[in-house]
């Protein structure tokens, strides 16, 4: 199967939205997730790939450019819509068989392929029923089966789990990943839910205001965000970010007078944004660890851990701790200096410590 290549794709809307100069290669068989806040252009990008929108400039290519391929673009792509977009007046069988009917596939083969893809999508209900008689999860399976039935190379999904309830979403997420592994198809999946994105993606594309902020594996995106936006958008509870100053004596960074024991890179601006994830802060002491003292403001129980909202001087700070702490208590928190992220305050780009 072939890679999907996007070359400096631009599509702008009069409202100011759209996507700008996006270049991306989606490898065959990979689960690519487009992640970003609403209005970041991820759906526009997906619709461009689907052919539902046309780019102002740039191009989309599936497979080798010089290869004589008789498959059209639309032929290689299937899509699952946010609300599944099943045909309400057709039975499940007719829904799944619709792409085959358009291609004049013989009756026996249609029947075989419909049953096959229904089974692959985990659809167990009677195919003579109508979409309105199904639950959300079953509709999702029908939409998947319909996308799969004509054996496309790429399956596009637009917030395909967003309209389901939380429990079903989690179980379908697992199943979807299984499904993708089993079928070996390329998936391009749009979501604004970073938990879903981290769980599903082989590779993540974080988007903001129509541009790509960072492309990488989930671990890489989480551990090494290339901008403050990516750092704070991915991860829950979100990353704590402070404005730090260079101490005149030691040359290391201080936040509200607290020394973080990190030296900024050469020639960096006087003020730097310092980010640290809530789960990278702990009460355990250790060698070569930085420490800060905070005052506990409020505590939330999240099941496995306690989310503690505290104050570092005047700045709010959030941490995840394994045990309960008293509100109003003074708490000493330790962190690994290697897990602290530095960002340029003017560009938002990542800086590596000296």
């Amino acid at each position, binding site marked *: 199967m072939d890679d999907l290549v996007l070359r400096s794709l631009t599509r702008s809307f009069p409202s100011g939205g759209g996507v700008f100069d996006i270049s991306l290669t989606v490898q065959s068989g990979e689960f690519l997730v487009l992640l970003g806040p609403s209005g970041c252009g991820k759906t526009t990008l997906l619709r461009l790939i*689907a*052919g*539902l929108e046309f780019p102002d400039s740039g191009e989309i290519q599936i497979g080798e450019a010089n290869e004589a391929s008789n498959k059209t673009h*639309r*032929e290689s*792509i*299937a*899509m699952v*819509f*946010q*609300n599944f*977009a*099943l*045909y*309400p*007046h057709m039975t499940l069988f007719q829904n799944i068989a*619709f*792409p085959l009917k*358009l*291609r004049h596939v013989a009756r026996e083969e249609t029947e075989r392929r419909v049953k096959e893809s229904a089974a692959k999508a985990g659809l167990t209900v009677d195919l003579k029923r109508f979409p309105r008689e199904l639950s959300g999860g079953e509709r999702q399976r029908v939409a998947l089966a*319909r996308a799969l039935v*004509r054996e496309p190379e790429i399956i596009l999904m637009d917030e395909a789990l967003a309209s389901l309830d939380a429990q079903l979403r989690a179980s379908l997420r697992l199943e979807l990943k299984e499904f993708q592994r089993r079928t070996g198809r390329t998936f391009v999946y749009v979501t604004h839910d970073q938990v879903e994105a981290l769980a599903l993606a082989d590779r993540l594309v974080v988007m903001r205001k129509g541009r790509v902020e960072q492309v990488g594996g989930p671990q890489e995106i989480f551990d090494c965000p290339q901008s403050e936006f990516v750092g704070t958008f991915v991860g829950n509870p979100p990353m704590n970010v402070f404005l730090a100053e260079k101490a005149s004596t030691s040359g290391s960074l201080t936040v509200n007078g607290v020394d973080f024991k990190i030296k900024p890179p050469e020639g960096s601006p006087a003020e730097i944004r310092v980010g640290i994830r809530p789960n990278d802060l702990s009460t355990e002491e250790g060698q070569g660890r930085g420490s800060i003292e905070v005052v506990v403001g409020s505590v939330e129980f999240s099941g496995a851990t306690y989310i503690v909202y505290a104050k570092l001087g005047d700045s709010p700070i959030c941490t995840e701790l394994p045990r309960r702490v008293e509100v109003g208590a003074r708490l000493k928190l330790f962190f690994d200096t290697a897990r602290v992220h530095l960002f340029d305050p003017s560009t938002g780009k990542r800086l590596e410590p000296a």
Partner: protein
Amino acid sequence: MNNPARGDRIGDLLQAARFALNAFVLIAATLPLYLLAKQSVTPELETFAWPPHWMPHHLTLAHFISVFAVNELRSAVLRSLGVATISAVIATLLGAMLAHAMARSSFAQGVGFSTVSGIRLLPMIAVAIPLGIILASVGIYDTPSGIGLAIVHAALAIPTAALTLYASFVAIPLEIEEAAWIDGASPLRIFLTIDLPLARASIATALILCFILSWDEFGFALLVQQTNRTLPPLLYYYTVFGNVGPASALALLMMIPAVCVVVALGPSLRGALTAGSSR
């Protein structure tokens, strides 16, 4: 209200007033129908009795029989049925396409609404003579089949069909059409296999409204089908030439489609008639 008895009395008066008003409206609406029905079964001679009889003294079915026995009448009934059916089908199909375009593109919506309202504001009969000339030049003026009139009626009915269907096309999610496109369907295919079936209730309503529109239409029918008449002009000639009995019978028969429609789709029709009145 500190005196409950007084409140009750006002309530009773209101109730009585409402009853009286209902009775008046009912009588005003049904009296002409009654007279028509009476005339249609009264023998010719008794029709002009003075003072008029409230109840017929003799009954006859002769007028109804004559409607089907007289060749002119029978062919007019068939012609009217044919013209109304053909024009309803054409108008609904073209109206559906217009409505779909209006529902899907803001440009088409702007153009569509102004054209549709424009056509409705235009005094139709003003274009009758050029229309007659065009029909004559293509050779479909005053034909026995009434095809010329059917086309004219279809043109008249397109705005009605489009406005009736507009709301149901707006209600179809765009995603469903996009899904069909990605599944490999052509735009025409999407329209025929996705949109039309999903709007079938409104399609039925539009068909019926357009049918009635043609069935009742008098002005163009009079001009375009001068000798091969449809029912409304024929009824007019019968009345002015004093054939009151057969005219009454014919008038009653002409009401049948309208009555059927009101009985069959009263509730849904009410929605369809108001749809498009305020967009």
